[in-house]
Structures are given as C-alpha cells and as structure tokens.
C-alpha cells in the first residue's frame, strides 16, 4: 500500500493484476471483504469500496450468500484497458526522463532492444 492513491483503488488494482497474470482464474472466487481487510490491515469499509469498484466495472460478480467471483471475459477486457493506458503510464515518462539525460528516441529504441529479455 502506498500513500499517494486511495487504498480502495490499490485493492482493486491488485485483484486486476492477479486476474491478468492468471493467479485468479475466470470464475474463481476472490477473497472476502474481511479477508482483504485482515490481510492488508485496512478498514473493512475500504476493502468493500475496492471490491465494489470491481463489481461496478464488471470485473467481479457478487453472488449473494456465496461470495464474489471473477467474471467470464474479465482478463481480456483488463488487458485491453491496460494496453490503452500503457503509453501514458510508461512510455511518456520514459521519453521525458530520456530527454532530460540527452538520450534521443533512436538510442532509446536501441536501449530497449538490448535490454529485452526473451520470454
């Protein structure tokens, strides 16, 4: 948990990350509000707000009396959303910092190629 952003958003993002990297499969049950609260040592109302955000965006579905589950197709939608944000979140700051250090776009591309690790 960092201090710069609301905790409920961080909770939602962690679940999203778990869905993207496959730790949480589609249709899998996610932890309960109280489990989130106990694990992160946060107020249960905050955990609830984070999970509700996932419900509102259609990533997670609540089944009354049973629990909360990852929606079918959630991973694909999250990937699409994250790709759309990728340039603004990662590429632009990278270019700004490179410019500050006098690294032009060509050298930057070269750096990325040389740093690239094969999967």
């Amino acid at each position, binding site marked *: *948990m*960092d*201090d*710069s*952003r*609301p*905790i*409920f958003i961080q909770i939602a993002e962690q679940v999203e990350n778990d869905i993207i990297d496959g730790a949480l499969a589609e249709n899998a049950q996610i932890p309960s*509000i*109280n489990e989130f*609260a*106990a694990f*992160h*040592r*946060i*107020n*249960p*109302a*905050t955990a609830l*707000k984070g999970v509700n955000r996932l419900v509102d965006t259609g990533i997670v579905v609540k089944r009354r009396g049973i629990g909360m589950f990852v929606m079918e197709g959630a991973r694909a939608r999250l990937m699409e959303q994250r790709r759309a944000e990728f340039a*603004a979140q990662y590429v*632009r*700051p990278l270019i*700004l910092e490179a410019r*500050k250090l006098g690294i032009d776009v060509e050298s930057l591309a070269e750096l990325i190629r040389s740093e690239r690790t094969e999967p």
Partner: protein
Amino acid sequence: MTDTAVQASGLTKRYGAFTAVDGVDFTIEPNRIYGLLGRNGAGKTTIMQMLTGQLFPDDGTLQVFGREPAEHADVLRKLCFIAESQRYPDMFTAADVFAAAPWFHENWDEAFATRLIADFRLPAKRRIKKLSRGQLSAVGVIVGLASRAPLTFFDEPYLGLDAVARHIFYDRLLEDYAENPRTIVLSTHLIDEVANLLEHVILIDQGRIILDRDAEEVRGSASTVAGPTAAIEAFVADRPVIGRQTLGGLASVTIDGRLDPADRQRAAELGLELAPVSLQQLIIHLTGDDLAASSEGEEAA
C-alpha cells in the same frame, strides 16, 4: 435505534479562562472506526470524557445513542472508555479486572478475553501494581476489545506496548470489528500505524475541529513537490500551500488538494519530484501552525 451514535452541536468545555473544547459540531455514525487525532492538549480527552458522561459540557448539546450520556444508565451501559493511564483498585489482579468487566459490559466475551490474555502474554494472576507499563496497557486493551461495547473509546491505549503487541491489537480489533461491527473511537499519536484502520478522521486543534473527513478522502489529498525554487513557484502558483522548506535554490512545498494526471505530467515536465503526504505528515502540517507561520514570514521578508 437512532441513526447516529453521537451527535454534538456547539459542544464546549471551559476550565476557568481556558476553553478546552470550543463549540465543536460533529457526528459519529454507528459501526465505524473513527480516529480522533490532534496534539497533546488539543481537547481530545475532554471530548471523550463528555461523550462518556464523566464531564458535563458548559455549553452546546450532546446526544449519545439519542440521549444525554451523563447520568443515563441505559446509555452509559453501551459505552466503554479505556483511558491513557487507566486506574484499577490496587489489590486487584488483572484476572480480577476481567472478572469484574461483565458487571459493566453486557456483551463481555470471556473466551475472547482469554484468547487476548494469551496473545499479549499477560500474567493475569499478578497484582495490577506489579505489572509493567506495557502489561498495564494490555489490560486496558483487552477490556476494550472483549467488552464489545456498542461505542468503545481507546484514548492512547498503548503506552509502553511494543510493536508486536500493538500489531496484535490492530489485528484483533479488525477481526473482531468485522464479525461484531460497533463504533470505535481511537485516539492516538501513532497515526501512521492506525491510518489504514480508520474509516473517518476528526482532527482537533486548540479545542476546535480542523478536519472532519473520510480517511479515504484525506489520503492523497495533499502532496509534496520538490525541485528548483523557480519551477516550484510556477507549479504551485495559486494552490493552497500548507508547508514550505527551502535549501539554497531548492524548495519543497506541500500543497493541499488532489493532483490530477495532467498536474503530474506538468510536474514531470518541469523536472519536479512529487511525493505523497501521509496522514501523519498532513496532520503535522495542519496542526504545527507555529512552524508554518514562521517560514511563511521568512518568505515574505
């Protein structure tokens, strides 16, 4: 059942010429965890003593579960107040305190108390006056938790408790609160440790409320910007400044108000570093007015 746990309006307490609590208005909603924060002598304990019927207000109205708390046994039965240096009869052992607790607290859970005694490794058979400072605090914390009072006050509950014991307190508080929701008011100076447990924050300074907001709203509501003074001034412009430090041509300024992505990008383009302000730092900025005033003065000179 009334909608609010506490409703205070114009609440005032004077000691001679000194006004300890100066016409405060606030509401405490049921089943939430509140942080009542502020510096020493800000008026936190006085407020809690009025809420628990230990002090009579000099002015204003106060309702706890829909009634004035003082001398109303049906209200007082619902309250539990753990004071900073809670006193017990000298001849009592910790076990005697726990045996007496259910006389005052109808929701007392003996099994929970027993578990807490083990968690805190409290020598329950030892006389209270032979306990260490931290063990004495543990007695108070156990009473506060196991009493499960609908409205529980912890006033600096953990003097002398080590970091492990404090975390046991936080964990048990959260677990038990999740299972048995109730209203909890936590007053402490260890703000960073409890910040994430709180749902709502009330900040008192010199007898007045200077902040009364949901903890989530407070989080990220201020940022520190650091970098060359000229760039800082351009970025800060007419934003509200709540703290300022300078070192040679560099400045570090804390501004109130949330930054949007466009602000963040502008800061990056100006070569400024942005850092979040924790609840504790924010409170230092908001209540350390003498420091802020003097550095503002230097700025003007």
